[in-house]
């Protein structure tokens, strides 16, 4: 793939943003006045034509329910749905020891574990270990589980630079589950999950990694990571909304009670009682999100075609350049400075509230996120009510960063 140069011609990017954007119709459709500068991929990513095509082909050519239809279209649908499961499994390097359960998103995947595992395994006095930098989706389900079971919540703190403090002291004999965000959606920090998983194993705790921000951007290898559960969302990795994944240790999933109940997840049903389908279908009650899962399979093909290591290097170069540009602006305060980070940065502009900033940047076609990023405890600790966030993906390039900083400058002129 060709490379782009920054204006000073001294830097290169591993990917050609303009070439990649050609695969994403939204960039053509929304770039009438200004180039659509999309810097909110940590919230949701844009969708390539390949994914739209896969969803459309399902609806236009073989729309049928899976696992029960005895006719060709139904068999094709089952085949495509199950092949999407295999693609996802290969993409994250999982083997037979782990199964792929399709959920509605990362949130549902975490809730599945908090209910189906948590409620039956946590007891009063047990400890649920999280970090202070969790997204609400990996905090609130555990608050509910703690309330139901009498287990206690404990948190690994983070320091001012946005990295976790030494976590060893947080692990005790009472630690029953450790659920940790892999890549922070606020600071972009890539947390030392291998170390955390090892510490958890040493006290016999179950491990869950919230990989909503990491699977879309990093090369994952479940066999070496070897956590019990890994949760992520399709729509942050070029896939459709409404599909996510819980990759779970097969043995644990087999021991667990179902989460949602109904059709598909059963083997036999009588009026009085039922038995369960095999893993993973035991956790996929009702007609699943067939089109979305097939779309996610296409997204995984697309990402694999480019290579996750290349994508990570691309984003690392972009974030480095962005930090230099932002730190060069007197009015800008950047929060956190983790050495291992993905393509996410939070900041504030003096005299311009992040909401106003986001509204004003939109005038120049620049889309960023403003608010608490579903992480109110982090904002509390930083002592701010809200921040602006820019996040990158494979379709961004240096020009996007330049448009961001230029738009910040013009916003400052507008509002002050």
């Amino acid at each position: 793939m060709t490379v782009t140069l920054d204006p000073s011609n001294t830097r290169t990017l591993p990917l050609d943003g303009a070439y990649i954007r050609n695969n994403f119709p939204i960039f053509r459709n929304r770039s009438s006045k200004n180039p659509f500068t999309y810097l909110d991929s940590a919230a949701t990513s844009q969708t390539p034509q390949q994914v739209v095509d896969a969803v459309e082909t399902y609806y236009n050519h073989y729309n049928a329910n899976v696992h029960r239809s005895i006719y060709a279209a139904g068999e094709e649908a089952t085949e495509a749905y199950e092949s999407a499961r295999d693609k996802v499994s290969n993409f994250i390097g999982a083997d037979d020891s782990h199964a792929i359960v399709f959920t509605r998103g990362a949130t549902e995947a975490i809730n599945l574990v908090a209910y189906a595992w948590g409620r039956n395994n946590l007891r009063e006095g047990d400890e649920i270990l999280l970090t202070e930098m969790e997204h609400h989706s990996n905090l609130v389900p555990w608050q509910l589980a703690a309330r139901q079971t009498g287990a206690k919540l404990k948190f690994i703190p983070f320091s001012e630079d946005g990295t976790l403090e030494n976590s060893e002291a947080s692990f005790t004999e009472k630690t029953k589950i450790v659920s940790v965000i892999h890549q922070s959606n606020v600071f972009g920090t890539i947390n030392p999950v291998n170390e955390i998983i090892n510490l958890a194993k040493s006290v016999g705790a179950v491990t869950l990694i919230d990989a909503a921000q990491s699977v879309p951007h990093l090369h994952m290898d479940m066999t070496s990571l070897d956590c019990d559960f890994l949760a992520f969302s399709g729509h942050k990795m070029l896939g459709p909304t409404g599909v996510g994944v819980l990759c779970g240790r097969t043995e644990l999933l087999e021991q667990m009670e179902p989460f949602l109940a109904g059709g598909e997840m059963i083997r036999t049903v009588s009026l009085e009682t039922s038995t369960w389908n095999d893993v993973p279908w035991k956790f996929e009650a009702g007609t699943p999100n067939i089109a979305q899962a097939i779309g996610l399979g296409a997204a995984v093909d697309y990402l694999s075609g480019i290579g996750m290591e290349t994508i990570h290097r691309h984003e690392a170069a972009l974030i480095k350049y962005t930090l230099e540009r932002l730190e060069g602006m007197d009015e800008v305060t950047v929060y956190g400075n983790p050495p291992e980070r993905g393509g996410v940065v939070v900041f504030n502009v003096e005299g311009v509230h992040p909401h106003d900033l986001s509204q004003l940047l939109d005038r120049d076609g620049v889309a960023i996120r403003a608010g608490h990023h579903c992480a109110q405890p982090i904002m509390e600790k930083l002592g701010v009510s809200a921040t602006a966030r820019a996040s990158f993906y494979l379709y961004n390039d240096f020009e996007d960063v330049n448009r961001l900083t230029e738009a910040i400058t013009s916003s400052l002129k507008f509002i002050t």
Partner: protein
Amino acid sequence: MDDLRELYQEVILDHNQNPQNFGQIEPATHSGDGYNPLCGDKLSLTLQVQDDKVTDLRFRGSGCAISKASASIMTTVVKGKKVVEVEALFGAFHSLVTTGDTDDGDLGKLAVMAGVYKYPARVKCATLAWHTLKNCLSKKDEVAKTE
């Protein structure tokens, strides 16, 4: 630049830079907090109400230009008004920022907020102070805040 000038009118930017009645009354007869969980905007309102009239009110808090200016303008408009008049103004203001309807002759200075209705995501910013005021007036604080 242009469309956004309708939203961010000069008057709004002025109030954002130099908010009126910013601070706290102590002791207050009424007080209350407003919070917008979507964006984290926070607002504290303290009032002096005598003989069903808002004789004084002040606000504190952090928020975007729209929410800050809206609170500031609200305090200047509400000060000296009877509680029933304030309630009527709440209705007129709400329809102003949700529909752009400026027919209500009593809006006065509030009319500068008319641009908000074109930006549905910002309606909550504009109405936060007003919702807080309405809550304050509907319940009296028995013990005036002293801090």
